[in-house]
């Protein structure tokens, strides 16, 4: 993302320091993660210290400070999915791709995330990959689904 676009987003929020979170969310929506150069630009434009921005970006769960993989795997770990066996699914996927929730593998193929409830509890355990919902997953089915992604 170039500086012009960053500036545009900041201007949209009247360049106010208090809109830091909204600015970062909007940048991340377009850029998928928040590289240091972007944070520096935001710091300069909003007159907020880089330390403060780091604090914000690490406190709020939505922000990502490392790049994402080509495929983002979201496994629901809401209570309903949990009692229906989500932990087994999470364990299996973790073993298969070798990363834990919140991480991206070294080939940048997968990013693994867990979430609190996708609102599709009737279909749980649920995995969502690129907007597609995989329902009623057993660990073995989850393995098959993940293997299809390159």
């Amino acid at each position, binding site marked *: 993302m170039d500086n012009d676009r960053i500036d545009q987003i900041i201007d949209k929020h009247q360049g106010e320091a208090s809109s830091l979170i909204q600015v970062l969310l909007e940048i991340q929506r377009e850029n998928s993660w928040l590289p240091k150069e972007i944070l520096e630009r935001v710091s300069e434009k909003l007159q907020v210290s880089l330390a403060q921005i780091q604090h914000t970006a690490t406190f709020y769960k939505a922000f990502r400070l490392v790049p994402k993989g080509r495929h983002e795997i979201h496994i629901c770990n809401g209570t309903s999915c949990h009692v229906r066996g989500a932990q087994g699914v999470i364990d299996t996927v973790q073993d298969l791709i070798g990363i834990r929730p919140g991480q991206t593998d070294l080939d940048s193929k997968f990013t693994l995330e867990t979430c609190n409830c996708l609102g599709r509890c*009737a279909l749980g355990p649920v995995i969502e990959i690129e907007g597609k919902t995989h329902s009623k997953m057993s660990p073995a089915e989850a393995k098959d689904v993940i293997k299809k992604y390159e």
Partner: protein
Amino acid sequence: MAQIKSPEELEKVRQGILSGRDPSKPSISVCAGSACLASGAAEVIAAFKAEIKKQGLEADVDTKGAGCPGFCERGPVVVIYPEEICYLQVKPEDVSEIVSSTIKEKKVIDRLLYVDPSTGEKAVHEYDIPFYKKQMRLVIGDNIKIDPKSIDDYLAVGGYSALGKVIRSMTPDQVIEEVSKSNLRGRSGSGFPAGFKWESCRKSEGEPKYIICNCHEGDPGAFADRRLLEATPHTVLEGMIIGCYAIGAAEGYIFVGDEFPQTVENARLAIKQAEEYGFLGKNILGSDFDLTIKVYIDGGGYVLGESSSLMASMEGKIGEPRTKYDHATDRGLWAKPTVLNNLQTWVNVPLIINQGADSFSKIGTEESTGTRVFSLTGKVNNIGMVEVPMGMTFREIVFDIGGGIRGNKKFKALQAGGPMGGFIPENLLDLQVDYEEMKKAGLAMGPGLIVADENTCIVDMVKYYLTFLANESCGKCTPCRDGLRHMLKIMNRITEGRGQKGDLELLEILSEVQKSAALCALGQGASDPLRASLKHFRDEYEAHIEEKRCPAGVCKVLSTALNI
């Protein structure tokens, strides 16, 4: 659309919309809620549009993606008007038959109907299905008739008439009086009287005043608040607009996460439409009342749902809870008087204005009035969004509405109130949905109800909540930050077969200290599920510790040890 300039003009516009619609014209509503979409509703809608075109019926039949009626278990849900025939689990392959038989020849297709598993009887209409029968769907009943993206649909079912009534004939004080009289209480579980909160804010001296709709809903496994915003965004807006009028606020915010992209999209679109129609903006319906409402996307984190964290985060700060010396109604957002209410609190406001406080307060119990929308999930047959009158027992919710336990298993517990809630065991299932009753039983009235059966391990479930909270604790105060970690350590050892004598007593002491010493409500409530489980399911803990056995067969190490 030109802005509507008066309540009278609003009624004319409504009449215009209604007269352009023929109630006998066939209309197909497909639920376009996130759960049905995940089971293929978008493909079903596309198939209907294509089929109707193919059969040359475009002028004779309407098709719409509608708001979620709640029966997620059997989605995609399709309702066909004017007969109100309800088809479940509809697939694109069923569509051409539906158009040919049901739309053209008025024939019901048996295999798409609901079959009562106990009697084998088929239900043709929504209202014949036991899942809906026992509900009281005052808030969500019209969802399936309305496309959440269409303000005209909302107007067609009487939407914004409460706002019209308020502008035409009520003073702000009268609105507050009506809300107070209705005994509407905070639906986040606080049970705090909404009218009282509004009045304090109205009387507070600071200007400007703000209102916030809390749609954060951080509880894992709960989706009712966000689903409501997605399905009926205009009801939320109407409630908020009336609230602002009463309180004297000029700005409102909807605080919501963007995990459900559709929710945010529908809310934003609804605001835009309400502005175009003159329900938001300057001189609303020709009065001298101005208001803007904005969607504020939250940055993620359970604690943000708490009022001081929420307001700190809206100010761009770190969303850590603060000790409260002032009421938000005096010094809230930007240190100005602020009313923060849960989304479900706002949603009830149009209803109260329309039907009057007297009639509203007759629903429910003496102290808990109106209805409550829950997401009912877990090991229950009918997973979905349900609306019940206060005073209903949890047994009715689980067995009559929920249809009992999946696979004929035995019921073990109902979890209510999320990570700061508790468990309802079988012998307490006759407890009513009622703030006081639930408080006495150590429960909070959160939006989610999760059913656990005999194959669910309560110890594991508590460990799950403690893990969740240990990750979510902001870390500011020691009792919460370290207390949770210590409790979790003990829980891990119990579930891994290394539990020791005295562990349960230790857990009890830790949870007690945490409850009394933590800084904010998160820390204070964090061990509530643990305490409830120790009270009702102590034998399960003991089996783990003394016999090294997980009775439900969930705790991995213990179950495998058994198999060897």
